[in-house]
């Protein structure tokens, strides 16, 4: 999914799931006032990142835990299953709300979906409030041994003993990727009543390398993501207790919570991703000589058409330099475009996810028609994607690219003390053969999506987003990104 699509999907989720979060008023009613009004609460299905492992089990577990908490507070609960069933019914009746050609949200359909679901749910299930919950990626502020976010403090290294935590931690200030539960209570017509975040877990740790104080980031084990119900209970307590318990009850719960939360072990560490294996260039060229390049898939930018042309040209040059015979883009387009039009798009209108089977069938058909008497051996599928760049010693590094965070004099460079990750763009280049098997994957870093703004001598600095209008505006980066993505396919200089 492209960044624009992710962004728009995220916006839609925010709009549909947390209807008024973006226009959150400065003053909400006090939790005591809200609590006094709550007799019946409808629990809305937990929203999760699309790539969360064991998503359905996590949803089921956490929704149930939330419903139990509400019921224990004497509130009558409309279970999440009711809204889920209604959403499915309306989604089916509308034929989904994603554009099958792009995977983007089809806004008029999404608006209609929202309108009907809200109206119907109000009609069928009268409630005082609707409780929305969502698992959100967060940034935990990490300073040496400890990372703090959304009500908890945990080791930045995943170590348990005090001495190990303190002396085994790097001298780094920055941010670690984390997950939190975000809970929002709205009236059935969308007026906000209450909102709170509760920390779930870190997604990565610092690890000191060697004796020179170098640092690397180690992800948590994939099977340790949202695998500890005690953490879920903690997040639910952090988000709901201020709403459901009166101050005396909260005070009483605090001591018990602290005791219980101390017993929660660190999330297990995983392995750093292995470096991509080098491709045997000679063997690759012997197997695949004549290649075509698909139209680059780019985020929705004001300059998308021009950037697409630029990358198509840069790829043609790069692949020719690598020794491939590149089919002219017009020849590929003449074959591909009718196939694509007939397919009606590769994205599922219900979920917005790519239907790999449909795309494979189309690619197979394209292979059969490409090249005439000189068949095409390979199709390269370029896409500009959002990646995480690592910040180390004032430099961001990702997919073969290195970018200084600060370009001024060393005196004012506060960026060297920051750690963590920043969003960046990369060119992702996949290649499929005539059997539509992926035989190559390379990524080349293009540019960061944030810039560092150094503060004064005493203050630190800040990161600010680069507006979409300024993405991919520097053509001098194109060839370098292609070079990085092709990697070992290019001949040694």
């Amino acid at each position, binding site marked *: 999914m492209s960044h624009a699509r992710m*962004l728009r999907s995220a*916006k839609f989720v925010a709009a549909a799931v947390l209807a*008024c979060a*973006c*226009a959150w008023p*400065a003053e909400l009613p006090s939790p005591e006032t809200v609590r006094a009004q709550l007799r019946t609460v409808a629990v809305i299905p937990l929203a999760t990142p699309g790539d969360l492992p064991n998503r359905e089990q996590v949803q089921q577990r956490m929704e149930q835990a939330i419903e139990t908490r509400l019921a224990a507070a004497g509130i009558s609960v409309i279970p999440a299953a009711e809204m889920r069933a209604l959403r499915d019914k*309306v989604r089916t*009746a*509308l034929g989904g709300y994603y554009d099958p050609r792009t995977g983007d949200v089809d806004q*008029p*359909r999404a608006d*209609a979906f929202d*309108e*009907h679901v809200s*109206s119907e749910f*109000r*009609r069928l299930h009268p409630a005082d409030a609707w409780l929305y919950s969502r698992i959100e990626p967060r940034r935990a502020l990490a300073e040496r041994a400890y990372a703090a976010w959304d009500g908890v403090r945990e080791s930045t290294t995943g170590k348990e003993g005090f001495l190990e935590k303190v002396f085994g931690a790097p001298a780094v200030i920055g941010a670690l990727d984390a997950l939190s539960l975000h809970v929002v209570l709205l*009236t059935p*017509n*969308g*007026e906000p009543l209450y909102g709170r975040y509760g920390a779930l877990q870190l997604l990565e740790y610092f690890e000191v390398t060697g004796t020179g104080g170098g640092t690397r980031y180690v992800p948590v084990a994939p099977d340790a993501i949202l695998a500890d119900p005690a953490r879920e209970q903690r997040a639910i307590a952090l988000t709901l207790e201020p709403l459901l318990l009166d101050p005396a009850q909260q005070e009483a719960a605090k001591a018990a919570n602290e005791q219980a939360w101390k017993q929660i072990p660190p999330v297990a560490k995983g392995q750093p991703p292995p470096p991509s294996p080098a491709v045997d260039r000679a063997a690759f060229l012997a197997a695949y000589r004549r290649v075509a390049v698909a139209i680059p898939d780019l985020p929705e930018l*004001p300059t998308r058409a021009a950037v697409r042309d630029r990358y198509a040209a840069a790829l043609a040059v790069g692949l020719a330099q690598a020794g491939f015979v590149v089919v002219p883009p017009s020849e590929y387009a003449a074959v591909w475009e009718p196939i694509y039009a007939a397919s009606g798009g590769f994205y599922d209108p219900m979920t917005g996810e790519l239907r790999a089977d449909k795309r494979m069938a189309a690619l197979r058909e394209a292979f059969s028609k490409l090249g005439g008497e000189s068949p095409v051996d390979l199709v390269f599928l370029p896409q500009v994607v959002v990646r995480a760049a690592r910040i180390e010693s004032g430099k961001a590094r990702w997919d073969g690219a290195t970018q200084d965070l600060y370009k001024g004099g060393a005196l004012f460079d506060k960026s060297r003390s920051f750690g963590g990750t920043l969003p960046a763009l990369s060119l992702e280049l996949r290649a499929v053969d005539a059997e539509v098997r992926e035989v190559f994957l390379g990524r080349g870093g293009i540019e960061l999506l944030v810039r560092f*703004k150094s503060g004064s001598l005493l203050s630190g600095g800040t990161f*600010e*987003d*680069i*507006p*979409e*209008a300024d993405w991919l505006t520097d053509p001098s980066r194109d060839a370098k990104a292609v070079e990085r993505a092709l990697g070992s396919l290019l001949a040694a200089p």
Partner: protein
Amino acid sequence: MAALPVSVAAAAEEAGQPDADQRKDAMELRRDADDIEKRLATSGLLYGNVELDAYVQSVADGLRRPDDPQSIRMHVLSGPWPNAFVLPNGASYVTTAMLDMLDNEAQLACVLGHEMSHLVERHALLELRSQRTREGWTTALAVLLGTAGAYYGGGQIGSALANLTASAGQLWTKAAVSGYSRDHERAADREGFARLVASGYDTAQAPIVFEQLLARTPDAEGTRPYFATHPRLEERIASFRELAAERAAGPAGRTDAEKYFSAIGDLPLDQAQRLVDAGEPARAQLSIDRYLTRKPDNARAYFLAGEAWRARTLEAGWAENAITAYGRAATLPGTPPVALRNKGLLHRERGEVQPAREAFQRYLELDPQAIDAGLVRLYLQELGAAPP
């Protein structure tokens, strides 16, 4: 130096700075202004109505004097609060909220004459050179446009504008958007008023602009950039009244109200739509009500009134008011079909079977291919009515 605007260079000389500093400041101003103009052009916040831009430009051109060293280029900017500002390179912006608030061309001329005076009198450079005031400045453009971004879409637009302001958080940026020093504001008021007189407009309209601004001043601190450093509005209203009174004995000037409303067209409804989307239905209702006094038979206005009421659910009678507004829209030509759909949904929620049926049936008659036609047909079956 040749590439710099004459007025900026001249102002630098007047400010008595050494040549190198003058050149540096003038270049800094020009560079930042060009950067902001470019960024605004791609920010998605320009209203984008070429005819309206041309009309506002024509009003500004009518205020020009032959000896003005610099002209302004007018653009209409989508914005939640009434505001207008000019950049030192001549690019000038008036917000949709300002145009929605004004009653006639004379009032618009008052606003533009004021901004033009800031440009011609080179207030940006003079303030840039004023170390005394520099320390107190903050990033007002971030307040104004960040607010706009948050209102109008949040996310990327808000972030684009925050970035815009971060890269040009200079003294003059604050001044241009949020107001110059009191002396410069007073000077611009006097100079703007003189332009109004010279162009034959009704000068009694000038204090009305500021009275309207005062009435629409938001309460929350930090959301009133237009007023942040302006002399007290009451003081300026009194000053304008005095200036207008001095002219009262002369012939009455023109207001050109009809021409103005013809030029802004449906801008108030676009503004209302955005305010509803931004969760400001009460302010949207103000825009709609003003529009309806001029065009009482506009279906879209009643539809938007229904939308605004539907977003005011904490107020008693919201549902009845929304149903009434949708119902009125339904009786007028050009009604958006969705007004009937939303009316039907409200009736259905309230258990009002017959009006729900009628609204849904009319919806399908108006838009049989609607995205949700299948769903509405299901509702009709449940309500015991045959779909059309």
